[in-house]
């Protein structure tokens, strides 16, 4: 990210990243918590504010850039990854972030998302997933559970939902993580890892929409249910939660009672596994029912970034070239003739 990003001792404070704009989300919206977490995390980048750019599409989440005292564009529905690709490719010195939602990134902008990920453009993509269309007042989204009753699906949605992490992994993403709006410490820990990753970092943030899809992630938040549902992935640690553990099963992974398995069979999490099949299997532990939902960094591997490869070719070709002279010789190249 900005090539030089090291997470330094912060010089700036969270308030330095607040813009003058009044924040206008619905009361109780999960976006407030994410905004506060991001504002208090950004000083850790150790960058001046002008070196940071946030680009969003359309939707509730996409108002985000207006509330940050950085450079920002609130762009077109679904197109933020494309616009950000142009900026990140041409400006090595910037830290470029994309803020998007489930409709923005996975429906109207699905194409741009998957191609940004496969290219591994140096972008940090924060997908606020509330499993509903909020700004347009409550239609089902590509992550809504099948059968969802909404204004546009009064008899229940018949769409099969996307699993955003599976999609990202299938798109060759090099960094894939999930976190929760309400868990600031975890959210910031994931942001930190994403910022340190050089290349596309895809972060799904489960975000509550109190108006149109309230408590969609309550299973993961309620003290009565969360211990049996929420899996906190930690590198180098066996994957255990509640009284359960994750073990290999057939071609994938499976949740079993901790007392049914040998300690040695419990999968030890490693985000740097080269084969994406492991992270994919993790992403399949839960569906929309959220019964076993891992959060944390699923995958974190290195691959050359698109923007550095593109700049590398341009820099190599342009080294020592005087553009004016080169243009003159280009115009005169090949067959020319002179009229006296």
């Amino acid at each position, binding site marked *: 990210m900005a090539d030089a990003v090291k997470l330094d001792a912060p010089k700036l404070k969270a308030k330095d990243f607040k813009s003058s704009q009044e924040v206008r989300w619905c009361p109780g919206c999960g976006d407030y918590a994410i905004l506060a977490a991001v504002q208090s995390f950004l000083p850790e980048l150790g960058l001046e504010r002008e070196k940071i750019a946030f680009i969003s599409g359309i939707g509730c989440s996409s108002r985000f850039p207006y509330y940050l005292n950085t450079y920002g564009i*609130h*762009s077109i529905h679904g197109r933020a990854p494309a616009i950000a690709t142009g*900026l990140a490719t041409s400006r090595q010195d910037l830290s470029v972030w994309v803020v998007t939602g489930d409709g923005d990134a996975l429906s109207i902008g699905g194409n741009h998302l998957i191609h940004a990920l496969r290219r591994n453009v140096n972008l940090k993509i924060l997908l606020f997933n509330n499993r509903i269309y909020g700004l347009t007042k409550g239609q089902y989204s590509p992550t809504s559970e099948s059968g969802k009753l909404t204004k546009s699906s009064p008899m229940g949605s018949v769409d099969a939902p996307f699993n955003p992490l599976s999609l990202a992994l299938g798109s060759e993403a090099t960094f894939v993580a999930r976190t929760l709006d309400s868990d600031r410490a975890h959210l910031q820990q994931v942001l930190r890892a994403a910022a340190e990753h050089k290349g596309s970092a895809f972060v799904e943030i489960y975000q509550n929409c109190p108006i149109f899809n309230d408590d969609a992630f309550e299973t993961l938040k309620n003290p009565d249910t969360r211990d049996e549902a929420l899996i906190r992935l930690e590198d180098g640690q066996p994957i255990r939660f509640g009284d359960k553990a994750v073990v290999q099963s057939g071609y994938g992974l499976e949740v079993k009672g901790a007392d049914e398995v040998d300690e040695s069979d419990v999968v030890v999490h490693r985000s740097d596994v080269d084969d994406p099949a492991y992270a994919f299997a993790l992403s399949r532990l839960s569906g929309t029912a959220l019964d076993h939902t891992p959060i944390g960094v699923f995958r974190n591997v290195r691959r050359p970034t698109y923007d550095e490869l593109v700049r590398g070719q341009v820099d190599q070709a342009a080294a020592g070239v005087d553009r004016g002279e080169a*243009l003159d010789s*280009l115009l005169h190249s090949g*067959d020319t003739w*002179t009229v006296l």
Partner: protein
Amino acid sequence: MNTVRQLDRVVIRFAGDSGDGMQLTGDRFTAETAKLGNDLSTLPNYPAEIRAPAGTLPGVSSFQIHFADSDILTPGDEPEVLVAMNPAALKANLRDLKRGGVVIVNTDEFTKRNLTKVGYEASPLEDGSLDDYQLIEVKLTSLTIAALEDHDIGKKDAARSKNMFALGLLSWMYSRTTAVTEDFLKKKFASKPDIAAANIAALKAGWNYGETAESFAVRFEIPPATLPAGTYRNITGNQALAWGVIAAGVASELPVFLGAYPITPASDILHELSKHKRFGVTTVQAEDEIAAAGAALGASWGGALGVTTSSGPGIALKSETISLAVSLELPLVVIDVQRAGPSTGMPTKTEQADLLMAMFGRHGEAPIAVVAPQSPSDCFDAMLEATRMALHYRTPVMLLSDGYIANGAEPWRLPDMGDLPDLSVAFATEPNGTDAKGEPVFLPFQRDPETLARPWAVPGTPGLQHRIGGIEKADGTGDISYDPANHDHMVRTRAAKIAGIPVPDLEVEDAGDASVLVLGWGSTWGPIGAAVRGLSDKGVPVARAHLRYLNPMPANLGEVLARYDKVVVPEMNLGQLSLLLRGAFPGVDVVGYNKVRGLPFTSNELQDALEEVIKNG
């Protein structure tokens, strides 16, 4: 000894199977002709299919060259000489040939099988169907193979050199040298000296065949044209556009960022620019047309010269992004190489039917500047103009080329580097206002009072952090605003900014006695010019003018139009400029001449149409 006859101009068409190397043959004949100092204009015609079956009508590829001892404006209406490498090439092109013209055929290919393939029941060489033409039969294939007997290559490779034999023969007929092509072949096949030698031998054999065979009683000479002094090269519209993009980067001292998605007939611009990264040109082949425009806009925000290229269907997809660029007030050059539509239409054929899309094809009130080059070489200058407007007025600009000038070529007098315009721009570096407390702040929509352009503050500039977006913003601060009066003001201000871009006055060619004006735009410049010359030679008075700036239009346009009883507007669409003119100048009698055949106008048809209007007063 052959008779040598002087001609002032000639149009030759080389036609053959797409595997016969007709484009190369035409290209080399063009290079030799240019070297001799003739003015010239060329137009290739490729099959739509990539590899159509050999010997079939869809597989025919051709290349037409018009060259003369004076300056000329078009690749010519009708060829006077047709070189047909096989029956398919003859059948596909004969109807275009001038009555009495010369047909040179490769008789080796006129086999029963090849004739049947294209539906000839009897050989046209024998059934009298070519009686109206001067038929010259040459066994091109077998003569080439015989000429290469001593070369260490197989028969098949030898036969492939028949296009060079044909080129040699035509070079002899029209008194061209072969030296330029010999050098070219040596370079092209530097790693395959056997092939180079065989091609050169075939070329010379063709030339010598003309010299010795008795079929050719006459040779022709076309004396050099008197052209302005300078160094020239031949250039296609797409190449000139690509080089114009590079020059715009040099002249603006900005890095260039091209976002593109492959589409006929615009892809060659992407190909050409991809070769020239040494100019600081970044090319991104995006996942789709939308992303291509989006990436260019993102780069433009970051301080690059953002350019995106496409043709009609792709421009439609970019429409949303162009509207965002209108709202963000950022520079973006959008190149539309128009083709016959709607939808896929005829991708390899030309049309001018995207004018109204360029003008109005966006949501909301979203005016942009529109410029149209008039000839292949003019694409270079038009690109510099488009860049000037985009950078200085922080606006998208549409450049409307089309398939005719994109693939057509003409000699171009090379500009001096010192004559490149200064397109440099100043980025914002300091706060430009104060807040309520009197503290300095940056106001992203505080406009230059003269140009109405807003400051261009690129990310990375300390202290100028700001947020922009598609939501309506308050003039000055750029803060989100739903204020009715502000929106009305912003819509009108964006429109006034475009309307206020200065463009040169329209120039009119009028001997002083014309009552009819012919007004064109874009690629019809050549055919209209040739038609007007034809009328002038006949003593028929007509005035002509050509619009390069479609938006804003020249300030004197209304006054010019009002001077004439009638204004004839030829367009390769159903009357799009006519519609604009009737709307803007209701008193003017606009007569459209409209055809959408996927082909450029011929100067003859335009001449007839104009004469008709003039006669009928």
